């Protein structure tokens, strides 16, 4: 009763579920706020880009206007060395300038053009080329099952229902080493799927416990 509640569920599991659910709710709530803020940023960016286009259009119109006036003046006085002079502003509809500025789109320049070629296949030991793959150098990330965690047990492994599924649905690699220990235990004899962390027998517990206790294999069943 110290470990299980009236429904037979471990109290620790209920507690961890509460923590997990609270954390997940918080993540969802912040995600909603982030999503709204992303749309607002997009909207503001679109407004800024539109204003920049309008300003560029206005400037172009003015420049076109000045050039037109200069061209008119130079035709009227072709032999005189006339300096450009400012004339009163004339109503002129100018050209509509379309297109995007460099800061217009939130998408950067498109990727480089491709040549119509077939890339050759590489040996598995070949190094990836620039077009085929890219590498990023970064500090070693911490993930589930990383060696930096206090627990030294291996990550979960499950025996899937592979026999019932067509092999074509699987993605496999060549490395087939599965000699890791399992955490969970069961009461039955070790089977092919006993590499799962979940236990079905106490006798099948791995001999290497985190604390180095070697007596586990001699414990009796309750």
């Amino acid at each position, binding site marked *: 009763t110290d470990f299980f509640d009236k429904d037979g569920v*471990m109290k*620790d599991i209920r507690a*961890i579920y509460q*923590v*997990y659910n609270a954390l*997940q709710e918080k*993540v969802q709530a*912040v*995600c909603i706020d*982030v999503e709204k*803020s*992303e749309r*607002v*940023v*997009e909207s*503001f*960016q679109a407004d*800024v880009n539109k*204003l920049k286009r309008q*300003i560029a259009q*206005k400037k172009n119109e*003015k420049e076109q206007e000045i050039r037109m006036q200069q061209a008119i003046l130079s035709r009227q006085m072709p032999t005189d060395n006339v300096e450009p002079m400012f004339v009163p502003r004339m109503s002129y509809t100018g050209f509509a300038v379309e297109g995007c500025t460099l800061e217009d789109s939130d*998408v950067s320049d498109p*990727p480089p053009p491709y040549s119509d070629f*077939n*890339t*050759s*296949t590489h040996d*598995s030991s070949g190094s990836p080329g620039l077009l*085929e*793959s890219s*590498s*990023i*150098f970064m500090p*070693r990330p911490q993930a*589930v*099952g990383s060696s930096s*965690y206090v*627990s030294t047990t291996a*990550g*979960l492994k*499950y025996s*899937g*229902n592979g026999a019932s599924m067509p092999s074509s*649905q*699987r*993605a*496999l*690699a*060549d*490395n087939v080493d*599965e000699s890791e220990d399992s*955490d*969970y235990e069961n*009461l039955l004899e070790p089977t092919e799927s006993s590499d799962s*962390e*979940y*236990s079905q027998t*106490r006798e099948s517990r791995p001999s290497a416990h985190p604390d180095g206790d070697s007596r586990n294999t001699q414990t009796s069943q*309750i």
Partner: protein
Amino acid sequence: RAGGGKMAVQAVHLEADAFLVCLNHALSTEKEEVMGLCIGEVPPAEGRPREGRVAALPVDTNRIVHIHSVIILRRSDKRKDRVEISPEQLSAASTEAEISFSRDSSRLAKMTGRPMRVVGWYHSHPHITVWPSHVDVRTQAMYQMMDQGFVGLIFSCFIEDKNTKTGRILYTCFQSVQAQKSSDPARPWTDSCKVAEVSFLFAAFNYISHPSRYDRIEIPIHVVPHETIGKVCLESAVELPKILCQEEQDAYRRIHSLTHLDSVTKIHNGSVFTKNLCSQMSAISGPLLQWLEDRLEQNKQRMQELQQEKEQLLEELAALE
């Protein structure tokens, strides 16, 4: 060169936010492979230059796959060297993806005005080379039978440079092509029985040595930068901890349903479940929450900057009029 012939796909454009979700998923565990689906489109071919005009041939946009988002898949079998999903789950995920994306009123559908669909799959190779295994190539070939433009992405992570002790992440995009048959040199034989026997042995040796009849062919992949993150990608990112928790629950329930377990074993299994869930919260949920909060703060600052810039531009525009 193996696998000659024209490629169905010439290049892949992967949106930066989708790339982020893929990386986040691949880096979530270094013990098992993970898998997901790529959602996007293949834009229709654009017009070609008129006959007789001398012009550079445009890129055949019909052969460029655009990946806008990804869907994280729940694994039925968690292993370090394989990742599996059931055919029913794959079909359901594909259908759900296409339906939800066609109804999506977010910038994704508005931007393209075209329905999205499943255009590829991705999986991770933790501590494994980035190149697809022969099984990966066969799996890809099977997908291509349904969709010639289907592409496969692989993310190789948790690889350390031994000298610098820095982590490396490699990614690649590939398709499968029919392997070319080996050419046997023509040799005259006077005894027809010996020819048949040798041919049979040679074919058997070839089959054992090269069980795959497909070769990989690499597709150029480019990550398209974006200033903002799409709604679908954000939802996929926060879906990750839920999926990992569901996988853990499935494993625990499978073992907990056994009736012959003694109390100590049940306590042990419950502790393992608790430990694994704590590990997920520490490695995935916690950093995800931190990243979201930082992103929110960054967006607030960006909004202020854009607001100020907008006011300045309005003043400038008014001065020009």
